[in-house]
């Protein structure tokens, strides 16, 4: 690992100021992704700003929703009673990610900022427009079994690796951000970017901006399920995942949120399927019809055509398990 300057910030303001003084500075909290990327030589910040002393570790909930501080560990968020009872989809998604050790280290803010696990991005001998813009996409013509079927570009077909983010996209969360210009909120579904011509940009966070919390608005969902399909039963990234939350009253779907992971550069909301489901009976036949349209508009590559069939089956299973 290339050495770097280390500073520990004592307040959000000093952290932001320190990041503005060096354009090759990065914030570090859990470090589970960043330290790994630094070991591999994928990123080499000149300065790391340790933000773990900042007062961003609280979980507050009220009638309007729940606000989870950026420095809350993934395990702490997953074990929080309010999260477990009122936002079970988030708890399920958190527990589907990584391992117990990593969930103890990784923070909610860091989870949002984690980078793709595309093997071409991770191998510095390979071309990758995300790691090294202009070098090409190794995956497009390469071994692309894990890659995107929605929203990709000819520059990049990587997928976002997070489980937690799929649940947050489904739960209409917002990201709270601080900068020297003040505080702002970004809708979670607008936070991450599609690759387009600039795959080096994973999200819309600007220099000098720091994630302080995520907020999930209160909802009336009474059924939820997070389904993750992977190569082994635990501790692997998703081939395809589905986050579903439903409000079912007297057998009728009053409201529904559906998002998929492992299929795009960002958590992928299935808005057309949601529209189809609202007002219908929560029955197997309706779920089958919904699943049949789930992968409409997908584009596959040589090794990931299986994601069409798998994606439809996963949507059906997630909807079915949610209402059981």
């Amino acid at each position: 690992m290339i050495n770097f300057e280390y500073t520990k910030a004592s307040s959000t303001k000093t952290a932001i100021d320190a990041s503005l003084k060096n354009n090759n500075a990065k914030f570090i909290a859990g470090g589970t992704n960043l330290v790994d990327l630094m070991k591999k030589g994928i990123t080499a910040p000149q300065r790391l700003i340790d933000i773990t002393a900042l007062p961003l570790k609280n979980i507050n909930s009220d009638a309007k929703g729940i606000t989870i501080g950026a420095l809350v560990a993934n395990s702490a968020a997953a074990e929080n009673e309010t999260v477990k009872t009122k936002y079970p989809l988030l708890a399920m998604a958190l527990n589907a990610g990584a391992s117990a050790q990593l969930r103890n280290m990784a923070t909610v803010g860091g989870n949002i900022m984690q980078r793709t696990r595309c093997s071409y991005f991770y191998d510095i001998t390979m071309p990758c427009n995300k790691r090294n813009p202009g070098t090409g996409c190794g995956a497009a013509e390469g071994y692309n079994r894990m890659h995107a079927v929605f929203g990709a570009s000819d520059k990049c077909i990587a997928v976002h690796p997070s489980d937690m983010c799929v649940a947050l996209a489904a739960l209409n969360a917002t990201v709270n951000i601080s900068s020297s210009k003040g505080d702002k909120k970004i809708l979670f579904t607008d936070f991450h970017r599609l690759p387009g011509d600039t795959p080096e940009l994973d999200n819309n966070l600007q220099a000098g901006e720091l994630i302080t919390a995520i907020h999930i608005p209160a909802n009336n969902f009474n059924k939820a399920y997070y389904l993750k399909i992977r190569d082994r039963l635990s501790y692997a990234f998703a081939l395809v995942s589905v986050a579903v939350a439903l409000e079912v009253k007297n057998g009728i779907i009053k409201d529904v949120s559906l998002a998929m992971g492992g299929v795009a550069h960002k958590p992928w909301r299935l808005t057309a399927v949601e529209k189809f489901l609202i007002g219908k009976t929560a029955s197997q036949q309706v779920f089958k019809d919904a699943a049949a349209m789930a992968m409409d508009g997908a584009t596959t590559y040589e090794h990931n055509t299986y994601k069409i069939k798998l994606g439809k089956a996963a949507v059906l299973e997630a909807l079915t398990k949610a209402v059981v």
Partner: protein
Amino acid sequence: MQTNKPNGCANESRRSFFKKSTAIAALAAMPPLLAKAGENDEKLAEYFEKVPLQLEINGKPYSLTVEPRVTLLDLLREQLGLTGTKKGCDHGQCGCCTVHVDGQRINSCLSLAVMNHGKKVTTIEGIANGDNLHPMQTAFMKHDGFQCGYCTPGQIMSAICCIREGHAGTPEEIREYMSGNICRCGAYPNIIDAITEVKKGGQPL
């Protein structure tokens, strides 16, 4: 064969030989390079600056200086000789390096040592009570929870927390919450038996 050395290291002579020979090779190669860089680039020297670090390891306070890039795993093994914690993948994928920080299991390979300032670290060397093994160590021996033993320190450290966290209720739950520790010998069924026995024993861990 040396056994039962106080620091538990049977290959003391081989390990220190490697350390010395590497240090000599590094010395021979480095001075001209470093001296020149030091003259020309003040910034480079700044990067190599060590930072102070105080932490407690296995109940003992340490006052150290480390380069910011040193991981907790490398600090334990390379600087402090606590080689019970193993380096497997060095990328957070195998769990060999699992230690407790303030009572929570983490992958020490992905934790910068300097970020553990003021914290309490427990390694496999710190869980026995004198000559009395920790109940989890005894259970791993009784149930043959290993073959080659390389993953065992990490498995044991992780297993203790698996019970503490309340996630050792069923074999399925143990498998899920121990999935961050890979055993390539495949001793999983025996590891689960060991954890189940300690859980049923109900001792405070």
